[in-house]
Structures are given as C-alpha cells and as structure tokens.
C-alpha cells in the first residue's frame, strides 16, 4: 500500500458569513488547497466533502459547480464533529486502496449562533431542563465533573485551558478571535453550565478547510519539499461502556482511536511534538490529555498547571487557538486542525511555530460517537 502525503492544505480565516452559501465558503478553501499544492481541479481524481448542516444537499458537487465540474466521483460525509476528519480519512483510504493518486478533501460549515444540543424532542413535551440538560455545554460539563470527582480537578484548572488557547490564538491570524482572556476574565464570564463559562465553550463560526492528498508516486513526481506524510489515520465509534447511552463517553472512543493511531504510526505519545485536539469545551481538553496518553491518568491538571501544553512546553496543545478561540465550524474542524499541524511541520507557522516539530497529532470527536485521529510527519 502506498504511503499518503498531504501536498496542499489550507483554511479560510474563520468568521461569520451569513450572506454566503455553504458551497461558496467550501469552494474558497478548495481553491486555496489546490493552489498550495500547485495543482488544479483537473488534476483531482476524486473528492470527499464533509458538511453537517446540509448533509442531504450534495455540498461536494455544489462546490465543484463553483470551481470546476470535471465529473469525478464525489462522496459527501456527515459524522458529527468528526465530519472533516472523516472526509480526510476517506480520501486517505481511497489512495491507500490504490484507486487514486490525487484526491481532494474539503470540510465546510455555516453555523448559527447559540446553544447546540438539547435533550429529546419528538412526541409529547420538550425534555430539556426536565430530564437534565442535553445542551453540549452541559454534556461536556458532566464529563469534566467526572474527572473532578476522580482526580479533584478544579474549576480554575479547567479555566486555565481557555486562557492558554485564547493566548495561542493571538498569534493565529486565521482564528476567529485574537484576544487575551486572563484567568479572572474566563472565570468571571457568564456561567453557562458549571464549570464551563462562556469563554470555555467553543465559538460557533463559519469556515472551511481543504487538503490535497497524493500517493507516494505522485508526491515524488510533484516534489516532496512541502509534503507532509500521513503516518496514521484512525477512527473509532463508542465501544460499550456502562453509562455511555445516558452520558456520552468521549474517553473510551478517543482511547481506542489513539491506541490504533500510535500502533499504525509505530510511535508513542512521547514522540509527538504538537497536538490539535478537540477542545469543544475547556472540560473536554482536560480529558483528552489523558485519553491521548500525553500524561498519565490523573495528571491532566498538572499538565495545564505546569505549562507542559503551552507553546514552548513539552507538548503544545492547540497552538492554533483551538475550537475555543479559533472557532468550531463543525464540518471544517477536522481538516482545519490538519492544516494547523501541517503548517508547523512545514515550519511556516510564524510567531506560533512549534520549533523543530517533526510529528504532530490531530484529534476530533463527535458525539454519537465518532473519533478521528491523524498522525502527520515532516518529510
């Protein structure tokens, strides 16, 4: 099986574009990724497109209607917050399978403002606030509180994660926000669902990101200089755990995918130089330090307290600003974090560059549950 390389990758600056269409937003990133690869739509042999909000509306084909209708096969994917990673992984698999040498993966989302999630629906009466809360800030608060119960993790420790990611985003011109949020500002922001304040919840934004994936043969032909090797692509659904059907278990699913990714890459967590992980809420990031093996179980609080996950630390996490400040356009997120890691591996991340980065990891998790992990390597 051929190794697979990312030859071109880019994202648009995340923001709010209510006057544009979903395909139009997606087309912009697609063209940027093609330019980055030095290729055109005519060179693409297949396209995988990730979008959630219009999952039944042929977004991939409509993107091609904006950038070039060449008749290539298009597959549209929806997989909750793992949608973009799923599109990327499908593209990767098609090259692994030997079907194609050059494939385009696009992730795009146009979001409304406001709360996501909510319990129940359907017949009868609304269940939100009657049978607990199904809002995302609450679901991830409950997952974080489980960590507090087991390890004594504090509100302040969770809040520090938001301080860190907002700080990182001041160095990322493509992030939605570039503002410092000191600890007292984060902790005193509107409490949404304890311990998640408003600044500890991801920002709903519109955005798109895209990647051109190529086979080893094609990479050698086109030039390896800026190519990034995909060392592992792993995906898991939620294995049975005792409370999973009532309290979505983001831990077991991530651990399963992480184990597979490390095995496929033949590396361990100690070899990873930077991680873009799914900080949909500050509470979630805390859990994933342990889930991804960046530290031992129970030591996540120490990771943030001691600065190991900051830029300049042992393993910087979410130097892009993460979903908390860069923003979280659901279907685009899984490719945007691949863009971030590739940018560091290429040594092109400017002020926020993780020095000497050789191996990076991306992680997304969508409730329901889908976890996608990629390990990328500097060539």
């Amino acid at each position, binding site marked *: 099986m051929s190794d697979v390389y990312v030859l071109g990758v880019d994202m648009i600056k995340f923001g709010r574009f209510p006057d544009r269409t979903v395909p139009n937003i997606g087309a912009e990133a697609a063209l940027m990724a093609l330019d980055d690869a030095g290729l055109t739509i005519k060179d693409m042999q297949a396209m995988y497109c990730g979008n959630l909000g219009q999952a039944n509306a042929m977004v991939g084909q409509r993107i091609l209607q904006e950038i070039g209708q060449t008749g290539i096969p298009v597959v549209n994917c929806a997989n909750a917050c793992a949608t973009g990673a799923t599109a990327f992984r499908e593209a990767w698999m098609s090259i692994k399978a030997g079907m194609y040498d050059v494939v385009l993966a696009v992730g795009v989302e146009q979001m409304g403002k406001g*709360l996501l999630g*909510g*319990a*129940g629906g359907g*017949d*009868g*009466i*609304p*269940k*939100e*606030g*009657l*049978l*607990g*809360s199904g*809002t995302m*800030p*609450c679901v991830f*608060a*409950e*997952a974080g*509180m*489980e960590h*507090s*119960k087991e390890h004594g993790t504090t*509100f302040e420790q969770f809040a520090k994660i938001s301080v860190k990611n907002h700080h990182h985003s001041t160095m990322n011109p493509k992030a939605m926000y570039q503002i410092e949020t000191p600890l007292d500002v984060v902790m005193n922001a*509107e*409490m*949404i*669902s*304890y*311990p*998640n304040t408003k600044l500890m919840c991801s920002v709903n934004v519109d955005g798109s990101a895209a990647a051109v994936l190529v086979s080893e043969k094609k990479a050698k032909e086109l030039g390896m200089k800026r190519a990034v090797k995909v060392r592992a692509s792993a995906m898991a659904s939620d294995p*049975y755990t*005792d*409370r999973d*059907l*009532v*309290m979505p278990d983001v831990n077991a699913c991530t651990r399963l995918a992480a184990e597979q990714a490390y095995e496929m890459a033949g590396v361990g967590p100690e070899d990873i130089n930077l991680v873009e992980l799914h900080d949909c809420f500050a509470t979630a990031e805390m859990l994933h330090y342990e889930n991804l093996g960046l530290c031992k179980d129970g030591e996540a609080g120490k990771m943030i307290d001691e600065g190991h996950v900051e830029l300049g630390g042992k393993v910087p996490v979410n130097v892009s600003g993460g979903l908390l400040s860069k923003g979280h356009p659901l279907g685009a997120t899984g490719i945007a974090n691949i863009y971030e890691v590739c940018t560091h591996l290429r040594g092109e991340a400017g002020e926020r560059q993780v020095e000497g980065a050789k191996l990076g990891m991306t992680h997304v998790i969508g409730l329901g549950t889908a976890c996608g992990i990629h390990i990328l390597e500097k060539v």
Partner: protein
Amino acid sequence: MSEKSLPAVGYLKIPDDGNPYLEGHKCGNCGAVFLGERSVCSKCFARDKMSAVKLQETGVLHSFSVVYRSFPGIDVPYVSAIVDLDGGGTVKGNLINIEPDPEKIDFGMKVKLTYQDALGRKDKEGNSYLSYFFEPA
C-alpha cells in the same frame, strides 16, 4: 385529552393500580441494564435475552452540572444529574430539593427518585405529563 397524566418518557411506567416506576431492560447473559426496549445487548451481543425489570428507587450521584443557560423558556439554574441506581441502570435527570450550587453538591451523595408533574409542561392536545426527578435521600 387524557384524564390522567401521561409519562414524560417511555421508560417511566404508570400502572393503573400502583406507583410509577422506571423500567429498565436487563440482559440475561451479561447483566447490562438499558433504558428503553431492545432485543440485542450492545455489550455482549446476546439476542433475545432482554427482560423488563423495575429499576430501584435509590442510587448515587455519579456526575452533574449546574445549568445556568438553557433554551429560551427553560427555568435556570437547575442541576442536571447522572445517577447510578442501586441494582443497576444509569439515569439522567434533574436533581431537585437542593441548592443549585456546585459547592453544596457532593459526588457520591445518595439520592432517590420522586415522581411529579412535568413542570407544568403540556403537549399540543393539552395533556399533562408525569416525570421523574432525583432528590437527596
């Protein structure tokens, strides 16, 4: 419109001659307890080993959040709680009759089920609903 209250969820049972209770479905092979009917166990994959069981009224608080922002029209703050019932089964619901202050809620505290009107919520036909809540035991 129904004379008596309807159950807010399918796994809340309201017998004509007795007290309301929560119904679980227990796997005869591995003992896993699910809310809602099913024929295959997602833990051990056994088929047709499920039987309906009455869940116990008491349990311990596994995790929670105090919800300060919800959808429009929903009263806040309230406590969203995950409870492991004694004898098996995990259930999510509102924890009531306690101050909605994270400092005053203890993990592992004992709680019990109570059945009350569904906060006055009615469906389009005007039917009333009965729901379940947790309160400190």
